[in-house]
Each structure stands twice: as structure tokens, then as C-alpha cells.
């Protein structure tokens, strides 16, 4: 299966820093670097899951109407 564009997309440090600004989190430059490295590691590890689930697999959260009553 061709890897989706989304899977290939990783934020550059500049883009990531802009996102950090938008989040409103008051983190130092040093902290940003460490969190960014962790972010890259997570993205790398997440690629493993492409072999387990396809993007078109059933929804992650399944809403079953029968679980709700009208009462």
C-alpha cells in the first residue's frame, strides 16, 4: 500500500515551533528541542502501525446506537 501523504508529513522545527506558539504553552527553547525530538521519535515509531492497520480500516471509536436508550 502506498504510504499516505499524511504519514509522510512531519513538521519541521520551524513549523513545530509555530504550532507550539499557537498552543499557548509556555515552554523554553531547551524544552522545545527535547519535546520536538520526542515528537520525531513518536512519528517514527507510529510508522510501525501501518503494517497493522490500514487507513481505511473500521473506525477507531465505534458508536453503537443500541448502547443508548431513549429513556
Amino acid at each position, binding site marked *: 500500500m502506498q504510504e499516505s501523504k*499524511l*504519514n509522510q508529513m512531519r*513538521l519541521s522545527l520551524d513549523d*513545530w515551533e509555530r*504550532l*507550539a506558539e499557537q*498552543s*499557548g*504553552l*509556555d*515552554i523554553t527553547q531547551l*524544552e522545545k528541542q*527535547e*519535546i520536538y525530538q*520526542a*515528537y520525531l*521519535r*513518536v*512519528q517514527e*515509531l*507510529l510508522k*510501525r*502501525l*501501518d503494517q*497493522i*492497520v490500514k*487507513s481505511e*480500516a*473500521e473506525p*477507531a*471509536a465505534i458508536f453503537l446506537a443500541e448502547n443508548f436508550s431513549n429513556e
Partner: protein
Amino acid sequence: MSNVSASEIAPLSVFELSRFLAAGEMSAVEITEALINRIEEKNETYRAFLTTSFELALKLAARSDARRIKSAPLSPIDGIPVALKDAYDTKGITSTVGSGMFRNRVPREDSAVWEKLNQAGAILLGKLECTEFCLGGPSLDSAFPKSLNPHDKERYTGGSSSGAGVALATGMVPAAMGSDTGGSIRIPASFCGVSGIKPTYGLVSLRGLFPLSGSLDHAGPMARTSRDCALLLDEIKGFDPAHPTSSKRQIAPTSPSLSGDCRELVIGHVTNFTELEGVSEESQAACLRALEVFEDLGAKIKKVQLPSLWDYTIANTVIMTAEAYAIHAERFAANLNRVSDLTRHRIALGAFLTAENYIKAQKARRALSQKTYALMRSHSLDLLCYPGMMGDPPEIDKVGRYYYLDWPLITSPANLTGAPAASVRVGYSVANMPMSIQLTGKLFEDGKVLSAAHAYEMATPEFSKIME
């Protein structure tokens, strides 16, 4: 004042204490007073309790004694002192979730767990230290003094139910409640040398347990034996219509079925977890020795392989981090400097995970669960067994903020699959630190997990001790 000394009471299990209570050889007030003395003696050194509730405890103990005289105990744990991780809400008693931001947080309602323990006649000695917002640790700049591992104060206690592990290991309390999102019951149980079970997801209500990650959080008991964990689990399990994750499917009481008999059991030894790079030779050898004990007890052992531990770890990490950020985002934007360095790093990572990341992890959760249970069915397995930890508890200042991105979390498969999982102590390493195995079962087969853990503990009583 009590006629029974603290040092006589401290090593006793819930099971033993309940027998003494039933025989009229001890009173709940005597036990409570002795443990209060023990806490006053030990807590300054080991810092397991954040808040004590001695006045309430003595009142509850007196009521328990009166009940026994007038009628009958409410349950097998009527009159037994317990303590709760400080993430459980207790009406009128400070519940900090380990955070300075919640230093003055006093809940108006009890958590479902304390509600049930209270109804069973248990006695609350206080609230136990936990790592901030249950995120795991160790935090070196935490708002509260951190618990110290009685086996070696320089080494990590394991988190996030760190106070529970330490209070049990030092004989301050015979039973406690922890919670587990990525291993937070089993890690401190293992590093402190006690027992703990993360029950089947939904078996114990999460109402009033401050969430870290609602779809992975589990409430569960910790004690010095698996039989004691069973006694507690029997009182706290049950459908709770007031919490959406509570399961309607229930199980029979687990404690009456603990027989010590393993002759019908088929245990899958997960070799790719045991032989994984990073698992110490000692941990591997301890796991193999434990399997030999099970074989001697009559169990049949089969070698099996599960998907890579990294697959479980990354799915668990992404779900936990994203959900934790969603819970804390607003609070953090305004107060990020009021939390510990570790919390700031771990929570902030969640701000950068995408919806696609989270959805992928949730889909993988289902796929990995299907693979795990399919393997158990196809090999007719009752239980899975693998090392409890990768090795000895690390030195406190050597644990990285994102250590779970460097080494896989050997506790994560059971959180992801919702399976019942017990940490069972299996001896001591060369460094004299406790070692453990994990036993995990099929959903709602918590009794089978506890029964096997109990059988193992009965066969190896030399591993049971408290630290002075």
C-alpha cells in the same frame, strides 16, 4: 492504647488480619492503632503517605468492632485498614493527584472505589503519594516529597502508584488502591516487591479516579499477596451505571476459588518479550525459573510469540499522551510553570500529536487486541507469562523524561488489550532488588490470573517480607 505492637501487625496480610478479627483475637481498633504507630515511625523516612486520616480511621475501626459484637461483619475486609492513591476522590479529604496545582483540592463526593470499600467496612488510613497527574515519574522537582524505595533509596520506586508500593513494602498498610494506565500498578509493585493486579478494563468503576487517559485507565488493588488483592477486588468490582466505561459483564468472586492448583492451566510463555533486547539476563532467568515452578505445580507451558512489544508501546503511548493533553490542555496553558518538569514535557508532547496519529493508535489497539486474544484461543492458553520488568529499578536520576520512547513498556500490552494482569514477585536480583513476572489472562478471567499468582506465592513463601 493497643496491646498489639506495630511490629507484630505490620507484616500480617489482609487474609491473616481478617482471620484474627473473625476469631476475636484482635480488634479493628487495635490493628488500626498499631498501623498508625507504624506510619508515624516509618513515613518520615519513606514518605508514602501524603495525607493521613487517623481520626476517621479510629472512628471507622470502632464502628467495625461494634458491628462484629452486635451482628456480623459487612465483608471479609470489614475492619481492615487500607490506603488510597491520592488520585481517588475522598469526600472532605484533600485529593491532590500528586500535583501542587491541586494542593487544596477537596472533593465533594467519594470515588466509586472508596464508596465500595467503605461499604465493605474497610478503614481509611490516608492518601498515598503518586506522581503528578498519574503520569509516571520520577519527578525530581515535584510539589510533594517523593516516596523512597525501601530496597534502595537511590533507586526508583516505580510509578505512578509509588506511595502504594512503598507503604505496602514497609508494612505501613496491608492493602492499597493504585491505578494503571501504562503499568502504574505493576511497575511500583514490581520495584517495591509487592503484589498488584490491573483488573479487566471496566470491571472496577473509574468514577472519581482522576483521569490520565480514560480509555486506558484501570483502577486496581495492591497488597503483599495476590490473595489479598483478590479479597479487595471482590469488594470493588461491579457495574456502575454512573460511569460510561463500567462493564455490565461481571465475574464471580475471585477469592473463594484460589486453590493453589495449577493442573488445568495452560500458560503461554511469550518468548519474544522475554528475549527482547534490553531485558536483563537476570529478569529472563527469573521468568524461566518461575515457569519451572508453574510446571512443578502441574501447569502446561507453551512457547508463543506476540506482536512486537514496540507496537503495543507506541499505540499505548500515543493514546495516553493525546488523551492526557486533552484533559489538561486548558489548565496547562495558564499554569504550565506550576507543574513539575517531567509533567510539562510529557503533557506538552500531546499538543503535537495529530488526529491521524490518535486514530491510527486506536485502530492498532483493536487490531493488537484481536491478535493477542486470537493467539490465546488458537493455543488454548489460559494465561500469558513474561518478565514483569526489563531489569532492576533504575537509579532515580537516570530515568529519562521519555524513557518509554527508548525502551518498550513491557506493561503496555495489558493496558492496550484491557486484559487482567498481575505483577508477581519472583525473588531478588544480585543487587538485592525485587524481581517479578507478569501473568495476564483473558478478559474477565481475573480470577484465573489471581489463582495462578496465589499458587506461585504459596509455593515460594521465601519471597515474602517487609522492609524495616
